[in-house]
């Protein structure tokens, strides 16, 4: 079951957030986003400094899991970060995150001349395609 998606740009601004299937709403989403970014940033830094050999981003940090949720993480070379949170039993969503990046984010956000970098994504085309894509993945409602 997919709970929510976050997209951060390279400056750490959360440019997109949406949630589904969640019973308990968060008290302060803006604060959550900041904390999440900070946590991922530190985690990534810690992972690369603590590793005995240089980390290949392809095999580096993919996800972590707690008893109640799993966080899937994908970062592009340009520093855009895609994060999806799901229930702990969901299989790896890395391929889906990559598809969201190349088929939806690039097509409907980056190529959209009205979209200003560093601002929140409000474009309907993106939102509709993202929702359509996620809702057809087996992980969405299981």
């Amino acid at each position, binding site marked *: 079951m997919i709970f929510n998606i976050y997209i951060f740009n*390279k*400056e*750490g601004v959360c440019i997109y957030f949406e949630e589904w299937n969640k019973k308990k709403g968060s008290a302060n989403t803006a604060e959550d986003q900041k904390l999440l*970014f*900070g946590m991922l*940033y530190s985690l*990534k*830094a810690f992972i690369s400094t603590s590793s005995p050999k240089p980390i290949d*981003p*392809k095999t580096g940090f993919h996800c972590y899991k707690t008893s109640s949720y799993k966080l899937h993480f994908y970062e*592009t*070379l*340009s*520093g*855009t970060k895609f994060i999806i949170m799901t229930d702990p039993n969901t299989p790896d969503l890395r391929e889906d995150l990559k598809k969201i*990046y*190349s*088929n939806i*984010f*690039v097509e409907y956000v*980056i*190529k959209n001349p009205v979209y200003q*970098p560093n601002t929140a994504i409000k474009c309907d085309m993106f939102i509709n395609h993202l929702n359509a894509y996620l809702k057809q993945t087996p992980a969405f409602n299981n």
Partner: protein
Amino acid sequence: MNKKYDKLGSDVFNKVEKINSELFTLTYGALVTQLIKDYEDIEQVNIKLEQMGYNIGIRLIEEFLAKSGIGRCTDFTETAEVIAKVGFKMFLGVTCQVTDWDTEKKEFHLIIDDNPLSDFVELPDHLKHKLYYSNILCGVIRGALEMVQMKVKCTFVKCSLSDDNTCSIKVVLEEVLSDLVPVGYD
């Protein structure tokens, strides 16, 4: 290494959507002409073209990464190859040559043999060696590399429209930004 990127370049080129190249060339020509009318000062036109290219570059890199599926380059020489063989091929349908490395491998020249932007173009004499007609390319390279943590300076050294034999862009690596620490998170 070269062979690998030649192949990747043509694979990606086959994959991307194409538009009529004459339409593209003529549209670019109209754009440059309009800028010359608007600014009068040719140096301003060069600057403006570079800025436009920069704004294109910071978006274009995303499409480039998404479509080519390329990984992080190990060094600047590899980056240069990727720009010349994959980047140019993917967006302009031509490849260019990388030459004139300096000893520290921080500086190279891109030779564009067949620059599609300057097809059908003849510069009047008073603009030769002043207007860098394809200066937009410098901006694109700068913008795109900046998004992948490389700060570079790009300048036109030779332009085939100004009686030089070839079209050549000098790219200088100024610094590699480490994974940016955003403000307030350090």
